[in-house]
C-alpha cells in the first residue's frame, strides 16, 4: 500500500531527484567512502583542525571580550604586546609584538624620576615604555583598502552596502603596518562609555587620565576617538608608546598580555561605523581585524566559525627551550619551526555533549573535554587514585591531559551576618568547624568524578605563593599524617562547635538545632543530590541547613544587599599572580559597601595592610613571606570554606601534537600541529559503513509484512467472490 502511494508520488520530478540522491548515497557507501563524515570530502587530508563551540561567543571586540570561549577565538587574531611562554612554568611573560619586555620607570609626586629600586611608598606613578617590532602587518581587510588616493570604503552610503553580506563581498582588501598608535587607540577605546569594556572601571584606578578621558568621551562618536588624547598614554614615535599608571602596580604587565591591550587600527572604527553594515551584523564585534596568526574567514555563530592562516603573519617561531622533561615528551620536536603550523581551524556549533563525544571518537573532532556521561568510558582510576585512560581509549591512541585550573570554587560565609559572620571567636570557631565538616574530598569523588583538588587556601596550584605538601596545608582543617594530608576528624569539628557555644549543634538562644541558610542557584532536579549532600555535612555537626533555591538575578541581589548567609561562588584567575585572588577578600572591595568582588564582605585591617604591601612588590622572599602570612590569616578567620580547585581533563587524538597544559596561554593555536595524513587514515579505518544490520532489518520487516499481504490477498479474493 505504501508502495502504491510512493509510485504515484514518483510521477513528480522532485521525489525522483530525491531518490537519485539516496541512490548516490547508497553507492557512495558501497564505495567505502565515509558516509558519516560531517565535513566536505574536498577537505579530507588537509591541514585543518576541527574544534567546536557550544554557545556562540557574545563579543569578539577585544575591548569587551572577557570569557574563555571568546578568548579561544580572539587570542589567535589579536596580538597584545606580550604573551606567556608556551612551555616554561611557572608562567613567564615574553614579548609578542614588542621588541623586548617593557622598560618601567618610577616617578615621585613632583614628577621626578626615581631609581629602579626606590621604596614603594615614594612611587607616585610608574611608566611603561613599550617598543614594538617594525614590519608587522595587519590581516588583509577592506578597512585598509586604498583606491584613487583615498580609503576605498571609508565613505560608504547605504546604496553601496546593499549587496554586501560579508566582508568577502568587498572586492578590495589591503593591509598596513602595525603602529604604536594602534595600541594607544585601543586604550582609548577601553575608556569609551559606549564600548562598555568590563575593565574600564579597573583601569580608571590605574591608568593616569583614564577617568578624565571617559568623561570627555561621553558624547563623542568612536570615529572621532583618534583626535582625543589621554594624559597617561602617549605615542612617542611610530613604534614606541608609553603608559603611565598610578603608583606601583607590577601586575599591570599581566594586563598587557591580555587582548584588552591588543592594537586596534582607527580605520576599523571608521569602517564599521558606516551606514548599512550593522544591520547585516557586520560589526567590529563580529569581524575582528588583527595582526595575529589567524583571521576570521567565516563568522556564522549560528553554525560554524572558520579561522584561516593570516597570509601576512610576521615571523614567529616555536620555542627552542622549555621545562625539563619537555624534550623527552616531544614538546621540543618542532623547536624553531615557523608558526602557525595549522592552515585552517574550523569551530563547529555542537550544543550537546553526546553527539560531540561520538564525533570525537569517530575522529571528526581532534580534541574533547570529558562530560560526566562519558567519563567512565574514557577514564579509570588506579589504586593510587591516578587517572588513566581506559583500554578503549588507549586502543585509539587517545591521549589524556590533566591540569589543575587556576580557579577556586568556595563556600562563602557572609561576614556581615550576625550568626556566621564577624570576627568574634565564637563565629570564627563555628566557621572553622563547618570548614572541617564539609568533606570536599568526598564531594570531588562523588560529584566531580575526581576532577578536582581540595583547596588548602585561596591560592591555586600554579600561582606564585602556592606551596605543595606539608608546608602548604591548612592547619585549621587538615593534619599532615603519614606523608599525606588528612582532613581533621569530625570530633575536632564538634569540639570547635562546643567551644563556640553550639554543643551538639544546639543554638543556646532557641535550645534547638542551629539553623543556617544556604542560598543557591542550583534549583534543578539534578542538583538535589548535591544539596542533600550539603545538608548531610552540616548535620554531622547537628546544624540544620535550610536550602534557599533562588534564580540567578535574585541571588545576585542578595549578594549585593548582604542578605545571604551561606553561598557557593568561584573565581577564575585573570593572570597568574596571588594578588588576583587575595583581592577577593580585600576590605575595600566589599560587595555591600563598595560594590566590589569581595562577596563575603570580609574586612580584616591586618590582612588589608598586608595586601596593600604585597600587591606592589615584585616576587621574592619578602613577598612570599607576606603571602604566607595572609594565607594564615584567611585560614584562621575562615571567611570561605576553601572548596575545590577544579582539574581539567582533556582528550586528544594521537595526531594532535605539541600538547602542554596551558591554562593561561590563550594564543595556543599557533603552536599546535596535527598529522593530517594519520588522521585521514584513522578516520577511514574507524568509519566504514555497516550495511548488513540494515539489510537484516529490512528482511525482518518484510517477514513481518507477509501475514498482512496474505490477509490482503484473501480479502481481495473474498471481495471477488
Amino acid at each position, binding site marked *: 500500500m505504501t508502495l502504491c502511494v510512493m509510485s504515484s508520488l514518483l510521477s513528480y520530478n522532485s521525489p525522483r531527484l530525491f531518490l537519485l540522491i539516496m541512490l548516490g548515497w547508497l553507492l557512495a557507501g558501497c564505495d567505502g567512502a565515509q*558516509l*558519516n563524515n560531517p565535513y566536505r570530502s574536498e577537505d579530507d587530508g588537509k591541514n585543518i583542525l576541527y574544534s567546536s563551540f557550544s554557545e556562540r561567543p557574545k563579543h569578539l571586540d577585544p575591548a569587551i571580550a572577557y570569557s574563555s570561549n571568546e578568548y579561544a577565538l580572539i587570542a589567535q587574531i589579536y596580538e597584545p604586546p606580550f604573551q606567556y611562554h608556551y612551555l616554561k612554568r611557572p608562567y613567564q611573560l615574553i614579548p609578542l609584538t614588542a621588541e623586548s619586555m617593557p622598560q618601567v620607570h618610577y616617578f615621585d609626586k613632583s614628577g621626578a624620576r626615581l631609581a629602579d629600586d626606590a621604596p614603594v611608598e615614594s612611587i607616585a606613578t610608574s611608566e611603561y615604555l613599550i617598543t614594538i617590532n617594525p614590519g608587522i602587518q595587519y590581516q588583509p581587510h577592506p578597512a585598509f583598502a586604498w583606491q584613487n588616493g583615498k580609503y576605498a570604503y571609508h565613505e560608504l552610503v547605504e546604496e553601496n552596502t546593499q549587496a554586501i553580506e560579508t566582508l568577502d563581498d568587498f572586492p578590495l582588501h589591503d593591509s598596513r603596518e602595525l603602529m604604536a598608535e594602534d595600541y594607544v587607540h585601543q586604550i582609548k577605546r577601553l575608556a569609551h*562609555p559606549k564600548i562598555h569594556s*568590563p575593565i574600564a572601571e579597573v583601569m580608571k584606578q590605574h591608568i593616569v587620565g583614564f577617568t578624565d578621558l571617559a568623561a570627555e568621551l561621553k558624547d563623542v562618536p568612536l570615529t572621532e576617538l583618534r583626535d582625543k588624547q589621554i594624559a597617561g598614554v602617549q605615542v612617542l614615535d611610530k613604534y614606541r608608546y608609553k603608559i603611565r599608571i598610578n603608583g606601583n602596580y607590577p601586575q599591570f604587565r599581566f594586563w598587557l598580555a591580555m587582548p584588552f591591550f591588543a592594537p586596534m587600527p582607527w580605520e576599523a572604527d571608521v569602517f564599521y561605523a558606516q551606514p548599512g553594515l550593522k544591520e*547585516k551584523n557586520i560589526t567590529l564585534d*563580529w569581524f575582528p581585524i588583527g595582526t595575529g596568526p589567524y583571521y576570521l574567514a567565516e563568522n556564522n555563530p549560528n553554525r560554524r566559525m572558520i579561522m584561516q592562516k593570516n597570509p601576512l603573519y610576521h615571523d614567529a617561531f616555536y620555542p627552542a627551550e622549555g621545562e625539563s622533561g619537555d624534550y623527552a615528551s616531544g614538546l621540543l620536536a618542532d623547536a624553531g619551526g615557523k608558526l602557525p603550523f595549522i592552515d585552517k581551524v574550523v569551530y563547529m556549533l555542537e550544543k550537546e555533549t553526546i*553527539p560531540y563525544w561520538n*564525533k570525537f571518537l569517530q575522529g571528526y573532532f581532534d580534541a574533547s573535554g570529558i562530560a560526566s556521561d562519558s567519563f567512565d568510558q574514557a577514564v579509570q582510576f588506579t589504586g593510587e587514585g591516578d587517572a588513566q585512560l581506559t583500554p578503549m581509549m588507549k586502543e585509539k591512541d587517545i591521549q589524556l591531559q590533566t591540569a589543575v585550573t587556576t580557579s577556586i570554587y568556595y563556600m562563602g560565609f557572609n561576614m556581615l551576618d550576625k550568626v556566621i559572620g564577624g570576627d568574634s571567636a565564637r563565629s570564627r570557631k563555628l566557621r572553622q568547624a563547618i570548614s572541617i565538616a564539609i568533606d570536599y574530598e568526598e564531594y570531588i569523588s562523588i560529584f566531580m568524578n575526581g576532577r578536582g583538588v581540595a583547596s588548602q587556601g585561596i591560592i591555586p596550584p600554579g600561582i606564585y605563593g602556592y606551596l605543595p605538601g606539608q608546608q602548604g596545608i591548612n592547619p585549621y582543617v587538615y593534619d599532615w599524617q603519614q606523608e599525606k594530608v588528612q582532613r581533621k576528624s569530625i570530633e575536632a569539628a564538634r569540639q570547635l562547635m562546643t567551644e563556640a557555644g553550639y554543643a551538639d549543634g544546639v543554638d543556646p538562644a532557641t535550645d534547638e538545632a542551629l539553623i543556617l541558610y544556604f542560598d543557591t542557584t542550583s534549583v534543578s532536579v539534578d542538583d538535589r543530590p548535591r544539596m542533600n549532600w550539603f545538608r548531610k555535612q552540616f548535620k554531622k555537626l547537628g546544624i540544620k541547613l535550610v536550602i534557599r533555591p533562588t534564580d540567578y*538575578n535574585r541571588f545576585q541581589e542578595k549578594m549585593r544587599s548582604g542578605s545571604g548567609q551561606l553561598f557557593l561562588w568561584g573565581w577564575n584567575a585573570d593572570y597568574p599572580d596571588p594578588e588576583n585572588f587575595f583581592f577577593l577578600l580585600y576590605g575595600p572591595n566589599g560587595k555591600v559597601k563598595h560594590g566590589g568582588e569581595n562577596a563575603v564582605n570580609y574586612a580584616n585591617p591586618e590582612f588589608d595592610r598586608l595586601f596593600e604591601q604585597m600587591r606592589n612588590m615584585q616576587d621574592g622572599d619578602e613577598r612570599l613571606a607576606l603571602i604566607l602570612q595572609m594565607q594564615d590569616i584567611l585560614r584562621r578567620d575562615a571567611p570561605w570554606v576553601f572548596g575545590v580547585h577544579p582539574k581539567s581533563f582533556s582528550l586528544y587524538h594521537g595526531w594532535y601534537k605539541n600538547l602542554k597544559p596551558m591554562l593561561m596561554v590563550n594564543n595556543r593555536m599557533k603552536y599546535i600541529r596535527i598529522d593530517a595524513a594519520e588522521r585521514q587514515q584513522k578516520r577511514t579505518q574507524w568509519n566504514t559503513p555497516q550495511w548488513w544490520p540494515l539489510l537484516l532489518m529490512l528482511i525482518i520487516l518484510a517477514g513481518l509484512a507477509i501475514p*498482512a499481504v496474505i490477509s490482503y490477498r484473501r480479502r481481495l479474493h473474498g471481495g471477488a467472490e
Partner: protein
Amino acid sequence: MIQYIIRRILYAVPVLLCVNIITFILFFVVNSPDDMARMQLGQKHVTQQAIDNWKQQNGYHLPLFWNSQKNGGEPLTETIFYQKSIGLFAFDFGISDSGRNIGADIKQRMWPSLALAIPSLIVGLLINISVALMMVFFRRTYLEFGSIVICVILMSISSLFYIIGGQFLIGKLLMLVPISGYDTGFEAIKFLILPVLISVVAGIGSGARWYRTLFLEEVEKDYVRTARAKGLSETRVLFTHVLQNALIPILTGVVVVLPLLFMGSLIMESFFSIPGLGSYTIDAINRQDFAIVRSMVFLGSVLYIFGLLLTDISYTLVDPRVRLS
C-alpha cells in the same frame, strides 16, 4: 473572502498587542533592566556606573509603562514598552541586546529550520496516513490490534530516546550518516536524513492513531457503503473516498502548523546542531536578551494567527459547502 481576510487581520492587532503586553510583563517580573545589564556586561568588574551606561545606551533607562516626568503624549511613548514594541508591528525587530541584528539572524536561521521541518512534515504525513489507512483496512483483525499496541509503545517512548538511540544506531554503530551537523545546499541532505527519520518514527504512534480515528468515523458512513456496493475495491474506497472526505480535519491539523514550521524544533535542532530558530528563543531567555524574546514571541503569534487564517481558507478549497463571510 478578501473582506473576511481584512477583518481577521484587524482582529489580529489587539491580539498581538495583548501578547506583547503579557510577554513584556512576564519578562520584567523576572528580570529587571539592571539584571539584563549585568547579564550582558559579564560577571567580573561590573559597576553600577557601567550598568547605568548600558541601560542608557540600550534604552532601558526609561520607565516600563508610564513616564510621569513627561507631558502630552510622551508619558506613554517615552517608556520601554512603547519604544521596544512599536517597531515590531512594522516587523522591524531591531538589534538584540547583545548587539546583533535580529531580522538578519531570523532570515539566516529559518532556512535550516524549514529544511528539517518540511520533509519531516511531508514524509510523516504520508507515512502516518498510510499506516492509519492500513489499520483501518485490517480493522477488527489481529493486525490492527498489533498495530495499535505498537503505536502505543511508540507514543510512550520519549523523543529524547529516539534521538539518542537513532544517533547511536545509525550514526555511531552503522556509520551511515553524520551524527550531527549541518551544511548548505545539497550537502545538507546527509545531515537531514537522520533527524527527519527520527521525527517520522517518533511521530508515527500518535499520528497514525489520530488519523485512524478520523478514518474510522468516515468508513462506516453511507457513501462508503454505497461505494462498496458499487463493487469498488477496499483499497480504492479507502484511498479515494474515505481519504478525500477525511481531509478537513487533517487539514485543520496540518495547515495550522505550516507557518510554525519556521520556528523550528528546539530538541531536534539542539541535538543535531542544526542552526535553526528552534533554540534561538531559548538561548535568548537564558541570556536575558529581551529584544530577541519579544521578537520571537511576536513572530510566533503572527504565524499562529496566519496559520488559523490559512486553515479557514483551506476549508473553502477542500469543501465547496464552506463559505467565508
